[in-house]
Protein backbone atom coordinates (compact mmCIF):
# COMPACT_ATOMS: atom_id res chain seq x y z
CA UNK A 1 0.00 0.00 0.00
CA UNK A 2 1.21 3.50 -0.77
CA UNK A 3 0.32 6.82 0.83
CA UNK A 4 -1.72 7.71 -2.26
CA UNK A 5 -4.04 4.76 -1.57
CA UNK A 6 -5.20 6.43 1.63
CA UNK A 7 -7.93 9.04 1.69
CA UNK A 8 -7.02 12.47 3.11
CA UNK A 9 -9.01 11.52 6.19
CA UNK A 10 -7.06 8.28 6.62
CA UNK A 11 -3.79 10.17 6.29
CA UNK A 12 -4.90 12.68 8.89
CA UNK A 13 -6.06 10.01 11.30
CA UNK A 14 -2.76 8.20 11.06
CA UNK A 15 -0.70 11.37 11.43
CA UNK A 16 -2.69 12.42 14.48
CA UNK A 17 -3.13 8.98 15.95
CA UNK A 18 -0.60 6.16 15.85
CA UNK A 19 1.68 7.95 13.37
CA UNK A 20 2.03 7.47 9.63
CA UNK A 21 4.81 5.02 8.81
CA UNK A 22 6.43 5.78 5.48
CA UNK A 23 9.18 3.73 3.85
CA UNK A 24 12.00 5.96 2.62
CA UNK A 25 14.43 3.73 0.76
CA UNK A 26 16.18 1.68 3.43
CA UNK A 27 14.49 3.52 6.29
CA UNK A 28 11.06 3.71 7.85
CA UNK A 29 9.95 6.98 9.44
CA UNK A 30 6.98 7.17 11.76
CA UNK A 31 5.59 10.67 11.42
CA UNK A 32 3.21 12.27 13.85
CA UNK A 33 1.63 15.67 13.38
CA UNK A 34 -1.62 17.54 13.92
CA UNK A 35 -0.60 20.25 11.48
CA UNK A 36 -2.97 20.53 8.51
CA UNK A 37 -0.05 21.84 6.47
CA UNK A 38 1.94 18.69 7.14
CA UNK A 39 -1.09 16.58 6.27
CA UNK A 40 -1.71 18.24 2.91
CA UNK A 41 1.98 18.31 1.97
CA UNK A 42 2.43 14.63 2.84
CA UNK A 43 -0.62 13.87 0.71
CA UNK A 44 0.88 15.83 -2.19
CA UNK A 45 4.54 14.86 -2.21
CA UNK A 46 4.71 11.48 -0.45
CA UNK A 47 1.79 9.98 -2.41
CA UNK A 48 3.98 7.39 -4.12
CA UNK A 49 5.80 6.22 -1.00
CA UNK A 50 4.99 2.82 0.49
CA UNK A 51 3.35 2.61 3.87
CA UNK A 52 5.11 0.36 6.31
CA UNK A 53 2.94 -1.82 8.49
CA UNK A 54 3.11 -1.39 12.21
CA UNK A 55 4.91 -4.69 12.79
CA UNK A 56 7.90 -3.52 10.79
CA UNK A 57 10.83 -1.82 12.51
CA UNK A 58 10.62 1.96 12.33
CA UNK A 59 13.98 3.73 12.29
CA UNK A 60 12.91 7.21 13.31
CA UNK A 61 9.90 8.44 15.24
CA UNK A 62 9.42 12.09 14.55
CA UNK A 63 6.79 14.66 15.40
CA UNK A 64 5.97 18.15 14.26
CA UNK A 65 3.68 19.62 16.84
CA UNK A 66 2.51 22.93 18.22
CA UNK A 67 4.42 24.36 21.10
CA UNK A 68 2.35 24.75 24.21
CA UNK A 69 1.84 27.82 26.30
CA UNK A 70 -0.03 31.05 25.96
CA UNK A 71 2.16 32.27 23.14
CA UNK A 72 0.56 29.88 20.73
CA UNK A 73 -2.53 32.10 20.60
CA UNK A 74 -0.44 35.09 19.63
CA UNK A 75 2.02 33.53 17.25
CA UNK A 76 1.52 29.82 16.55
CA UNK A 77 4.79 27.89 16.54
CA UNK A 78 5.74 24.33 15.73
CA UNK A 79 8.63 22.27 16.95
CA UNK A 80 10.34 19.09 15.83
CA UNK A 81 10.49 16.11 18.14
CA UNK A 82 12.74 13.08 17.95
CA UNK A 83 14.32 10.67 20.45
CA UNK A 84 17.80 11.92 21.00
CA UNK A 85 17.36 15.22 19.17
CA UNK A 86 18.77 18.39 20.67
CA UNK A 87 16.15 20.88 21.76
CA UNK A 88 15.63 23.23 18.87
CA UNK A 89 14.12 26.58 18.22
CA UNK A 90 10.46 26.37 17.20
CA UNK A 91 9.39 27.82 13.84
CA UNK A 92 6.26 29.66 12.75
CA UNK A 93 3.42 27.17 12.27
CA UNK A 94 3.32 27.91 8.54
CA UNK A 95 6.72 26.24 8.17
CA UNK A 96 5.58 22.91 9.60
CA UNK A 97 6.29 20.84 6.49
CA UNK A 98 9.77 22.23 5.73
CA UNK A 99 10.51 21.63 9.41
CA UNK A 100 9.52 17.98 9.02
CA UNK A 101 11.80 17.62 5.99
CA UNK A 102 14.74 19.34 7.69
CA UNK A 103 14.16 17.27 10.77
CA UNK A 104 14.23 14.05 8.76
CA UNK A 105 17.45 15.21 7.09
CA UNK A 106 18.88 15.78 10.53
CA UNK A 107 17.84 12.29 11.68
CA UNK A 108 19.60 10.66 8.76
CA UNK A 109 22.72 12.84 8.87
CA UNK A 110 23.15 12.44 12.62
CA UNK A 111 22.45 8.76 12.99
CA UNK A 112 23.06 6.76 9.85
CA UNK A 113 26.79 6.37 10.33
CA UNK A 114 26.65 2.86 8.96
CA UNK A 115 26.84 4.68 5.60
CA UNK A 116 29.34 7.12 4.26
CA UNK A 117 27.15 10.18 3.74
CA UNK A 118 27.85 12.91 1.22
CA UNK A 119 25.90 16.14 0.98
CA UNK A 120 25.12 15.64 -2.69
CA UNK A 121 22.23 15.06 -5.03
CA UNK A 122 22.41 11.73 -6.78
CA UNK A 123 20.52 10.39 -9.79
CA UNK A 124 20.94 7.23 -11.82
CA UNK A 125 20.97 6.07 -15.41
CA UNK A 126 21.87 2.61 -16.69
CA UNK A 127 22.74 1.50 -13.19
CA UNK A 128 25.36 4.22 -12.69
CA UNK A 129 25.17 7.03 -10.17
CA UNK A 130 25.65 10.67 -11.11
CA UNK A 131 26.71 12.45 -7.94
CA UNK A 132 26.38 16.23 -7.66
CA UNK A 133 28.19 17.39 -4.52
CA UNK A 134 26.79 20.63 -3.30
CA UNK A 135 28.73 23.70 -2.45
CA UNK A 136 26.13 26.30 -1.42
CA UNK A 137 24.62 28.16 -4.37
CA UNK A 138 25.68 25.53 -6.87
CA UNK A 139 22.16 24.94 -8.10
CA UNK A 140 22.32 21.28 -7.23
CA UNK A 141 18.64 20.78 -6.45
CA UNK A 142 17.52 22.61 -9.59
CA UNK A 143 19.77 20.42 -11.72
CA UNK A 144 18.63 17.34 -9.86
CA UNK A 145 14.95 18.16 -10.43
CA UNK A 146 15.61 18.87 -14.11
CA UNK A 147 17.45 15.57 -14.57
CA UNK A 148 14.66 13.68 -12.84
CA UNK A 149 12.10 15.46 -15.04
CA UNK A 150 13.93 14.05 -18.06
CA UNK A 151 14.03 10.46 -16.96
CA UNK A 152 17.04 10.16 -14.69
CA UNK A 153 16.08 8.16 -11.63
CA UNK A 154 16.12 10.07 -8.35
CA UNK A 155 18.20 8.45 -5.63
CA UNK A 156 18.33 11.53 -3.39
CA UNK A 157 18.37 15.29 -3.79
CA UNK A 158 20.27 15.89 -0.54
CA UNK A 159 22.21 12.90 0.64
CA UNK A 160 24.28 10.35 -1.16
CA UNK A 161 24.48 7.22 0.99
CA UNK A 162 27.45 4.99 0.18
CA UNK A 163 27.48 1.42 1.47
CA UNK A 164 30.90 1.08 3.10
CA UNK A 165 31.03 -2.67 2.48
CA UNK A 166 29.99 -2.66 -1.16
CA UNK A 167 30.91 0.83 -2.29
CA UNK A 168 27.63 1.41 -4.14
CA UNK A 169 24.92 4.03 -3.64
CA UNK A 170 21.77 3.30 -1.66
CA UNK A 171 18.70 5.23 -2.85
CA UNK A 172 16.83 7.41 -0.37
CA UNK A 173 14.22 9.00 -2.64
CA UNK A 174 12.36 11.79 -0.90
CA UNK A 175 10.69 14.96 -2.16
CA UNK A 176 13.09 17.32 -3.94
CA UNK A 177 13.49 20.61 -2.11
CA UNK A 178 13.45 23.74 -4.28
CA UNK A 179 14.27 27.27 -3.20
CA UNK A 180 13.24 30.70 -4.39
CA UNK A 181 13.65 31.16 -8.16
CA UNK A 182 14.12 27.45 -8.74
CA UNK A 183 10.48 26.88 -7.87
CA UNK A 184 9.29 28.79 -10.93
CA UNK A 185 12.13 27.58 -13.11
CA UNK A 186 11.28 23.95 -12.44
CA UNK A 187 7.57 24.74 -12.65
CA UNK A 188 8.14 25.86 -16.25
CA UNK A 189 10.68 23.18 -17.13
CA UNK A 190 8.58 20.37 -15.68
CA UNK A 191 4.93 21.40 -15.94
CA UNK A 192 3.75 17.96 -14.74
CA UNK A 193 5.68 18.20 -11.50
CA UNK A 194 3.54 17.92 -8.40
CA UNK A 195 4.64 20.36 -5.74
CA UNK A 196 3.69 21.12 -2.18
CA UNK A 197 2.40 24.61 -1.44
CA UNK A 198 5.19 27.21 -1.44
CA UNK A 199 6.25 28.23 2.06
CA UNK A 200 7.65 31.76 2.24
CA UNK A 201 10.06 33.46 4.61
CA UNK A 202 11.87 30.41 5.90
CA UNK A 203 15.54 30.85 6.75
CA UNK A 204 16.26 29.46 3.31
CA UNK A 205 13.76 31.77 1.65
CA UNK A 206 10.75 30.35 -0.17
CA UNK A 207 10.60 26.57 -0.21
CA UNK A 208 8.57 24.02 -2.15
CA UNK A 209 8.94 20.26 -2.42
CA UNK A 210 8.47 18.17 -5.55
CA UNK A 211 6.95 14.70 -5.46
CA UNK A 212 9.51 12.18 -6.75
CA UNK A 213 8.31 10.17 -9.78
CA UNK A 214 6.73 6.84 -8.95
CA UNK A 215 9.38 5.09 -11.03
CA UNK A 216 12.07 6.41 -8.65
CA UNK A 217 10.18 5.48 -5.50
CA UNK A 218 9.29 2.02 -6.81
CA UNK A 219 12.91 1.21 -7.55
CA UNK A 220 14.25 2.42 -4.25
CA UNK A 221 15.81 -0.94 -3.41
CA UNK A 222 17.88 -0.89 -6.62
CA UNK A 223 21.31 0.48 -5.90
CA UNK A 224 23.65 2.21 -8.32
CA UNK A 225 27.37 1.75 -8.90
CA UNK A 226 29.71 4.75 -9.09
CA UNK A 227 29.33 6.54 -12.42
CA UNK A 228 30.09 10.23 -12.53
CA UNK A 229 31.01 12.90 -10.03
CA UNK A 230 30.06 16.32 -11.33
CA UNK A 231 30.71 19.56 -9.48
CA UNK A 232 28.07 22.05 -10.57
CA UNK A 233 28.94 25.75 -10.64
CA UNK A 234 26.03 28.04 -11.34
CA UNK A 235 26.87 31.55 -12.50
CA UNK A 236 24.31 33.73 -14.26
CA UNK A 237 24.89 33.95 -18.02
CA UNK A 238 27.79 31.51 -18.14
CA UNK A 239 27.91 29.13 -21.11
CA UNK A 240 27.22 25.47 -20.38
CA UNK A 241 30.52 23.64 -20.11
CA UNK A 242 31.46 20.19 -18.85
CA UNK A 243 35.20 19.81 -18.22
CA UNK A 244 37.20 16.91 -16.81
CA UNK A 245 38.33 17.31 -13.21
CA UNK A 246 41.34 15.48 -11.81
CA UNK A 247 40.56 12.65 -9.41
CA UNK A 248 42.59 14.23 -6.64
CA UNK A 249 40.58 17.44 -6.91
CA UNK A 250 37.32 15.50 -7.17
CA UNK A 251 38.24 13.52 -4.07
CA UNK A 252 38.85 16.68 -2.07
CA UNK A 253 35.60 18.24 -3.28
CA UNK A 254 33.57 15.21 -2.30
CA UNK A 255 35.42 15.14 1.01
CA UNK A 256 34.51 18.79 1.65
CA UNK A 257 30.86 17.75 1.35
CA UNK A 258 31.04 14.53 3.34
CA UNK A 259 29.05 14.46 6.56
CA UNK A 260 30.76 11.65 8.33
CA UNK A 261 33.94 10.84 6.42
CA UNK A 262 36.15 11.26 9.46
CA UNK A 263 33.96 8.92 11.50
CA UNK A 264 34.97 6.06 9.27
CA UNK A 265 38.69 6.72 9.71
CA UNK A 266 40.97 4.85 7.35
CA UNK A 267 38.06 2.89 5.98
CA UNK A 268 36.27 6.09 5.02
CA UNK A 269 39.34 7.09 3.06
CA UNK A 270 39.50 3.76 1.24
CA UNK A 271 35.77 3.71 0.46
CA UNK A 272 35.78 7.25 -0.85
CA UNK A 273 39.00 6.73 -2.83
CA UNK A 274 37.51 3.62 -4.45
CA UNK A 275 34.36 5.56 -5.24
CA UNK A 276 36.29 8.39 -6.89
CA UNK A 277 38.50 5.88 -8.65
CA UNK A 278 35.49 4.15 -10.17
CA UNK A 279 33.80 7.42 -11.22
CA UNK A 280 34.57 9.83 -14.02
CA UNK A 281 34.85 13.34 -12.61
CA UNK A 282 33.91 16.69 -14.10
CA UNK A 283 33.36 20.31 -13.37
CA UNK A 284 30.17 21.71 -14.81
CA UNK A 285 29.56 25.42 -15.32
CA UNK A 286 26.14 26.56 -16.33
CA UNK A 287 24.19 29.76 -16.49
CA UNK A 288 20.70 28.43 -16.05
CA UNK A 289 20.12 26.85 -19.48
CA UNK A 290 18.62 23.60 -18.22
CA UNK A 291 18.02 22.15 -21.69
CA UNK A 292 21.71 22.49 -22.49
CA UNK A 293 22.58 21.05 -19.08
CA UNK A 294 20.42 17.97 -19.67
CA UNK A 295 21.99 17.51 -23.10
CA UNK A 296 25.43 17.58 -21.55
CA UNK A 297 24.54 14.95 -18.96
CA UNK A 298 22.69 12.78 -21.45
CA UNK A 299 25.78 12.82 -23.68
CA UNK A 300 27.87 11.78 -20.70
CA UNK A 301 25.65 8.80 -20.03
CA UNK A 302 25.32 7.71 -23.64
CA UNK A 303 27.20 4.47 -24.26
CA UNK A 304 30.19 5.01 -26.55
Amino acid at each position, binding site marked *: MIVGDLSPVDIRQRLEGPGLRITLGPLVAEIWSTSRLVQSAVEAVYAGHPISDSGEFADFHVAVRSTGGIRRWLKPLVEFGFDGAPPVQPLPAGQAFPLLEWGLNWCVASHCHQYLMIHAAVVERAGRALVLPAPPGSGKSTLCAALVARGWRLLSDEMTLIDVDRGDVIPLPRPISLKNRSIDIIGRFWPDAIMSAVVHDTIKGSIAHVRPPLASVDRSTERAVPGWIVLPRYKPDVATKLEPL*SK*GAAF*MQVLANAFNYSMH*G*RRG*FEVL*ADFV*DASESFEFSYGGDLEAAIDAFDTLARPL
Partner: protein
Amino acid sequence: MSRAAPWRAVAPQAIAWREWDDELVVYDDATGNTHHLAPLGGKVLIALLTHPSGIELPALLQVVADAAGIPDARLLAPNVEEALTEMAGLELAACDPA
Protein backbone atom coordinates in the same frame (compact mmCIF):
# COMPACT_ATOMS: atom_id res chain seq x y z
CA MET B 1 81.33 18.60 9.81
CA SER B 2 78.18 17.56 11.59
CA ARG B 3 75.79 15.34 9.73
CA ALA B 4 72.35 16.73 9.00
CA ALA B 5 69.54 14.87 10.72
CA PRO B 6 67.58 12.48 8.50
CA TRP B 7 64.00 13.12 7.51
CA ARG B 8 61.32 10.54 8.15
CA ALA B 9 57.58 10.09 7.92
CA VAL B 10 56.04 10.80 11.34
CA ALA B 11 53.77 7.75 11.43
CA PRO B 12 54.28 5.59 8.33
CA GLN B 13 51.91 2.86 9.52
CA ALA B 14 49.15 5.45 9.92
CA ILE B 15 49.35 6.64 6.32
CA ALA B 16 47.01 5.51 3.56
CA TRP B 17 47.35 7.07 0.14
CA ARG B 18 46.10 7.04 -3.41
CA GLU B 19 48.02 8.29 -6.39
CA TRP B 20 46.14 9.47 -9.48
CA ASP B 21 48.36 10.66 -12.30
CA ASP B 22 50.76 12.92 -10.41
CA GLU B 23 48.45 13.81 -7.56
CA LEU B 24 48.60 12.19 -4.18
CA VAL B 25 45.76 12.07 -1.68
CA VAL B 26 46.90 11.06 1.78
CA TYR B 27 45.01 9.97 4.87
CA ASP B 28 46.88 10.21 8.18
CA ASP B 29 45.25 8.06 10.85
CA ALA B 30 47.49 9.59 13.51
CA THR B 31 45.84 12.99 13.13
CA GLY B 32 42.68 12.00 11.25
CA ASN B 33 43.55 14.53 8.55
CA THR B 34 43.42 14.09 4.78
CA HIS B 35 45.78 16.00 2.49
CA HIS B 36 45.92 16.63 -1.21
CA LEU B 37 49.57 16.86 -2.21
CA ALA B 38 50.94 18.49 -5.32
CA PRO B 39 53.14 16.23 -7.50
CA LEU B 40 56.46 17.11 -5.87
CA GLY B 41 55.09 16.86 -2.33
CA GLY B 42 53.63 13.48 -3.21
CA LYS B 43 56.96 12.18 -4.44
CA VAL B 44 58.72 13.45 -1.32
CA LEU B 45 56.20 11.70 0.92
CA ILE B 46 56.43 8.43 -0.98
CA ALA B 47 60.22 8.62 -0.71
CA LEU B 48 59.92 9.06 3.05
CA LEU B 49 57.44 6.19 3.33
CA THR B 50 59.78 3.88 1.45
CA HIS B 51 62.59 4.79 3.89
CA PRO B 52 60.93 4.19 7.24
CA SER B 53 64.18 4.49 9.18
CA GLY B 54 64.81 7.95 7.78
CA ILE B 55 66.65 9.43 4.83
CA GLU B 56 69.09 12.33 4.69
CA LEU B 57 68.35 15.29 2.50
CA PRO B 58 70.87 14.63 -0.30
CA ALA B 59 69.72 11.03 -0.68
CA LEU B 60 66.10 12.15 -0.54
CA LEU B 61 66.75 14.70 -3.30
CA GLN B 62 68.19 11.95 -5.45
CA VAL B 63 65.23 9.62 -4.89
CA VAL B 64 62.77 12.40 -5.72
CA ALA B 65 64.76 13.51 -8.78
CA ASP B 66 64.83 9.94 -10.07
CA ALA B 67 61.09 9.56 -9.51
CA ALA B 68 60.41 12.86 -11.27
CA GLY B 69 62.86 12.19 -14.09
CA ILE B 70 64.98 15.23 -13.34
CA PRO B 71 68.70 14.84 -14.14
CA ASP B 72 70.17 17.24 -11.60
CA ALA B 73 68.87 16.59 -8.09
CA ARG B 74 70.33 19.85 -6.77
CA LEU B 75 67.85 21.84 -8.83
CA LEU B 76 65.07 20.42 -6.69
CA ALA B 77 66.60 21.34 -3.35
CA PRO B 78 64.65 24.56 -2.64
CA ASN B 79 61.32 23.01 -3.61
CA VAL B 80 61.90 19.79 -1.71
CA GLU B 81 62.94 21.70 1.37
CA GLU B 82 59.82 23.80 1.12
CA ALA B 83 57.69 20.68 0.73
CA LEU B 84 59.37 19.14 3.78
CA THR B 85 58.75 22.23 5.89
CA GLU B 86 55.13 22.21 4.85
CA MET B 87 54.78 18.51 5.61
CA ALA B 88 56.42 19.03 8.98
CA GLY B 89 53.68 21.56 9.70
CA LEU B 90 51.08 18.96 8.76
CA GLU B 91 52.78 16.42 11.04
CA LEU B 92 53.46 14.16 8.08
CA ALA B 93 57.25 14.54 8.08
CA ALA B 94 59.78 15.16 10.84
CA CYS B 95 63.46 15.79 11.11
CA ASP B 96 64.81 14.58 14.44
CA PRO B 97 68.16 15.76 15.64
CA ALA B 98 70.45 12.72 15.70
